[in-house]
């Protein structure tokens, strides 16, 4: 069993009850698999490629067996050439196709920044909108089990600095499907950020295809004492923290942004108008990341709503350590969110 699976198998099955018309409950992983399957069936311009998409594991099950159903022309393994493969995907997109390029670790995305940042994301602007680049880059981040500094990074915050790139960070099975559909339909490069620790998460997912608009967050739990804005997997940790805070009679509102580029500013400001206090939690490093950008936005546009300083609960600004003891110190979790909220409210 791969090490990432060992860790994930130990996790409990977190269940989301989204506002879905469907009673069907499936996992985050199956929601992604199903979306790719249905998209390949529906649109002949969609194709999926990346290291391991047609191996027996099929990128943790998200592409498993699809090469048998749609052929290796549309579902294929690649040379380990992340940068050029990103450019090749961008070129194919310019010629009218809808590529989905998969990185089984987000760390590998760093090898492709020239083609992603210098080319794909700039092409529309640089040429006055004459060419579209409808490209989806799927990345999977892992956490724990000694993954270490080069197999666990969540660099979505760094990439918020790239004009022309959209970034989706789905936390529930319903959102994984709806946002992946939107990403495939979008005429721009989209970074689709998945988290390995969300793969077992269960939730309501309709069988048919549906889309969720970019820049539209959702309130996962309503509250009145503090607003917790969470990104990707941290939505689950935030909800766990909110549950514990409730026992202390502290009512936390949890906002899942769903996309961090664009950001739903209004949902944050409306919540702050109620609570006046803000904690932001992200899977990436603290400095210069998603939490920094969100706190800057709030300071710039909604400073008058703040009654207390903003708190950021993120990874420490160090490379990920392998030691389980150091990992615990490094990663943000519900305990840290809980403690920080208690401290803030006491101050």
């Amino acid at each position, binding site marked *: 069993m791969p090490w990432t699976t060992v860790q994930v198998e130990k996790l409990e099955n977190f269940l989301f009850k989204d506002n879905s018309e469907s009673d069907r409950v499936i996992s985050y992983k199956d929601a992604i698999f199903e979306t790719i399957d249905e998209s390949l069936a529906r649109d002949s311009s969609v*194709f999926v490629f990346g290291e391991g998409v047609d191996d027996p594991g099929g990128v943790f099950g998200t592409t498993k067996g699809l090469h048998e159903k749609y052929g290796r*022309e*549309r579902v294929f393994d*690649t*040379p380990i*050439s992340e*940068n*050029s*493969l*990103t*450019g*090749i*995907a*961008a*070129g*194919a*997109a*310019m*010629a*009218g*196709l809808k590529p989905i390029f998969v990185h089984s670790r987000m760390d590998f995305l760093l090898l492709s920044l*020239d*083609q992603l940042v*210098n*080319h794909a994301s700039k*092409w*529309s*602007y*640089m*040429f*006055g*909108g*004459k*060419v*579209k*680049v*409808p490209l989806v880059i799927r990345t999977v981040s892992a956490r724990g089990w000694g993954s270490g500094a080069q197999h666990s990074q969540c660099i979505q915050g760094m990439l918020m600095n790239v*004009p*022309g790139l*959209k970034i989706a960070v789905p936390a529930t099975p319903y959102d994984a499907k709806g946002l992946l559909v939107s990403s495939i339909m979008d*005429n*721009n490069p989209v970074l689709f950020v998945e988290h390995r620790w969300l793969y077992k998460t269960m939730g309501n997912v309709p069988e048919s295809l549906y889309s969720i608009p970019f820049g539209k967050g959702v309130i996962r739990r309503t509250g009145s004492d503090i607003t917790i804005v969470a990104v990707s997997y941290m939505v689950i940790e935030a909800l766990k923290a909110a549950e514990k805070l409730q026992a202390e009679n502290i009512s936390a509102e949890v906002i899942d942004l769903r996309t961090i580029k664009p950001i739903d500013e209004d949902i944050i400001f409306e919540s702050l108008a109620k609570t006046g206090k803000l904690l932001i939690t992200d899977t990436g490093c603290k400095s210069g990341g998603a939490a920094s950008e969100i706190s800057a936005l709030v300071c710039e546009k909604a400073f008058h709503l703040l009654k207390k300083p903003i708190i950021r609960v993120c990874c420490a600004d160090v490379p990920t350590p392998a030691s389980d003891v150091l990992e615990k110190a490094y990663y943000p979790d519900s305990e840290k969110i809980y403690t920080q909220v208690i401290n803030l409210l006491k101050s």
Partner: protein
Amino acid sequence: MLENEKLIGLYKTMQTIRKVERKIEEEYKYDEMKTPIHLSIGQEAIAAGVCLHLRKDDYIFGTHRSHAQYIAKGGDLKKMIAEMYLRKTGCSLGRGGSMHLIDPEVGILGSTAIVGGNIPLGTGTALASKLQNNDKVTVIFFGDGAVDEGTFHESLNFALLKKLPVIYICENNHWAINSHQSQRHSGESIYRWADGYGIPSYQIDGNDVLKVSEYAENAVSRCRNGEGPTFIECITYRWKGHIGTVNDVGIGFRPQSEYDYWISKDPIKWYADYLKATGVLNDKMDESIDEEIDQLIDDAFTFAKNSPKPLPEELMDFVFAD
């Protein structure tokens, strides 16, 4: 052997490229073209010889030094010059500048100012041709500097693996800015690198437009027949310095003797002499071609200079496609 009409067509294309670039050089001092320019004077035969065999719907990708390819592929000259002047009517609506030329109507999907950056993009349109089951060909133009980049090696491996309809044209002018090829490569033959990947690869005189045309024609036909990629290294020389209108000969960069040798191998002069010696071109025709091109250039510069500039409130347009 090409028929006379095509032989003359090649000549017109080369002359248009040369005259447009000479005009840009002449006008540049007035500081109205506020964008870096990279002239390819001396290298005209390559773009002309290759693009002669391309259809309107075939794709090309160029570099920062792309005026020649844009013109040879049939890009709109008025829009190109307007882009030099960074006008709203420019091919990239004033957002790109001289290094980012595009004309999707004729398959020019853009050019990049990152060395080697266009090689994967063109390999990607070739992948699209294969998946879409059409016979469109992609040509990627790049210099001897681009082969230093990983994208060159990664893309060639992939193109052969998937047998893609793509032609890699290396315009080897020996200089990457001021760094000579001998400072960057252990050998002199770039085509051997491509050959090492198993791609049919050739090194030819890039100043001989008929040679370029002959090899390009074969490569295009291989692509259309589903036989996969071809690599052609065209040996040539840029007369001007890397950027702007400067002459960098004899001031510590390039030796005078090297420059003089290549001036004596002027691809246009050689070809005009050949056409006249074989009776395809005469002085009268040459004059009328001259006048025709001058008129086109005058019209393009007039159009550009009279075009409006983008407005500040349009800054955010086009970041995202609809």
